[in-house]
């Protein structure tokens, strides 16, 4: 892949060259693009995902910023 280079202003200096965007323009053709929830096949997978992916609400050991508090 050929990388694009762009010129940008930088604080305290004149202009610098930085790497431009690397994604390809255009439309994704795959109609299943984005259908990520279908990857979880069984109820067990789904419950596991909830515990890890949605741990903010369902993780047994996760309270994040609220770790010092009693879980809701």
């Amino acid at each position, binding site marked *: 892949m050929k990388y694009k280079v762009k010129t*940008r202003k*930088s*604080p*305290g200096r004149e202009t*610098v*060259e*930085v790497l*431009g*965007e*690397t*994604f390809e*323009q255009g*439309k*994704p053709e795959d109609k299943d*693009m*984005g*259908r*990520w*929830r279908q*990857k*979880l096949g069984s*109820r067990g997978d*789904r*419950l596991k*995902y*909830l515990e*890890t*992916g*949605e741990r*903010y*609400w*369902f993780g047994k050991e*996760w*309270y*994040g*910023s*609220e*770790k010092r*508090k*009693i879980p*809701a």
Partner: protein
Amino acid sequence: MAEKEAKSIDQATLEMLEKAAQDGARVVFERAETTRPCPIGADGMCCSLCAMGPCRVQPPKGKEETLEERRKRVGVCGATPETISARNFVRKAAAGTASHGDHGRVMAKFFLAVAKGEAPGYEIKDEQKLLQLALDLGVTIGDRSNEEVAIDIANLLVKEFGKQEGELLFLKRAPLKRQELWRKQGVAPRGIDIEVAESMHRTHMGTDQDYQDLLKNAVKVSLADGWGGSMIATEVQDIIFGTPAPLLSQINLGVLKDDEVNIIIHGHEPQLAEMMAVAAQSPDMIAYAKSKGAKGINLAGMCCTANEMLMRHGVPIAGNFLQQELAIVTGALEAMVVDVQCIMQGLVDTARCYHTKVITTDPRAKIQGATHMEFHEHEALESAKAIIKMAVDNFVNRGKNVRIPKQKTDMIAGFSHETINYLLGGLFRASYRPLNDNIINGRIRGVAAVVGCNNPRVTHDSGNLAMVKELIKNDVLVLQTGCMAMASAKAGLMLPEAAVQFAGDGLASVCEAVGIPPVLHMGACIDNSRILMSATAMVKDGGLGDDISDLPVAAAAPEWMSEKAITIGQYAVASGIFTVFGVNWPTIGSKEVTDFMFKDFEEIYGGMWAFEPDPVKAAHLMIAHIDKKRKALGIDKARERVLYDMAMRRELV
């Protein structure tokens, strides 16, 4: 033309306005010119609660008021301008909660019918979301079937509407500190309907006459929408129709087709639209359309039904709120099928100039002059096919006066908060951490929700576009719902390449790494509840404080018009989010009430209101608030970073 340009920045809209004028069709833009807003009502200074009035209590223009004059400026009952202003505001908030609540109630009861197998053609599409709700609500999962679990969930959700005491169940989803604050302030809603009913009682003549107490009630009734009616509607719809995930579609009047039967579904509740999508693809309906000389059936959406259909099926959007009559003006629309909310009665008058049939489908929303074909969910497919058949029959009546604007823009939609979580971290490490990290390191300055309606009192779509562009230019990630999401989509802001074109370097680099546009479509207006969940996930992930009010986030509705928008804004504020409205501000006639909401609310709720009709200045207010929060979190220095070029990187090694 210059005058027309001021009405909209959207070329398709301008073209159809010209056609409407040529055809003698009246549309909202013209009515807005002939019917000017009442200045006393606009400022919230008119009370019509009893037959001793209506009483107008507007302050004198251009002169100081003496204390005596101020004392006399009251209604016949003695109600002060503050009481009148606050009462008017509470009633608007209650109407918004009632509307979203009624939508939520219909969906919860529909969900129960689906679970019991009483709504043929519908099923539980998203087991993941079902399980999520079961965990949330403490419903036993075990080896029970999805339907058994769903019946328990549905019964609990239906009860939320009529609950008389305790607290709404979804309040527990909010950050712990926020829950404590609501309880301490006495604004945690008990149920949904009870808060609406109490609001109507409190604001009845001669009841609650303390503006601060009234505004507390506005908070409570609005929270019953955001963390109640709207959230229930969103979650139930996800279970039955699927949680949105990214997909590609198109938007603007150019999605109508000149050789197919065009049908627009307009309104808010998706159960009919879902079945219309199925029926429109059925071979018998397509064959029937062909027998009438059409090449097929083209379904498109408008307003929030459009968002629902777009996010789950990629059904294209014909336009936002102010374009509803213009779709008829194309002369190519066989049927405008409507249900509830944001349906202009003017549709029927516009349709008189063309062949379009305006079809109402909901028993709660009939329109004089429209054809009523009631939708029954227990025979949904038959209902949907009957409506489509009527549209197909109307194809032969299409005249020669057809002009479909060519404008249509690609867009990506479907960013539910679950999908954002997944996109940021992947299936095995789904997380808001990358978002929080990029906020902390300053690549992303903050997050803004720009939501709400269109309003012909301001140039169509322009407030949104100016605001959103200013925000993303300043590295603020923008989340959108409703008609404002559509305005950005029409301008191409909902494509990944928009990041390079319009976003600041920091935001663009993150968008590129994750593969998302700088402006994320999160759904319909009820789906502002998804934004509450995203904000909560950001808090819970850590590093950005321990309440939503600590986050570098802000919200806005630059072109709002409906009571629902007031409610949404109020629950955002009550959830700790600084919220700016454009167009006008309904309590502006009362300095006391306005100051209380714009200043004192911050002390009480951590979030407050602001009014700024200039969208760029409003964006600057939001950015200033974001920067204030960054400073409070101690992450303001991170943004003052140097951009490293290749030579500097080499020096570092």
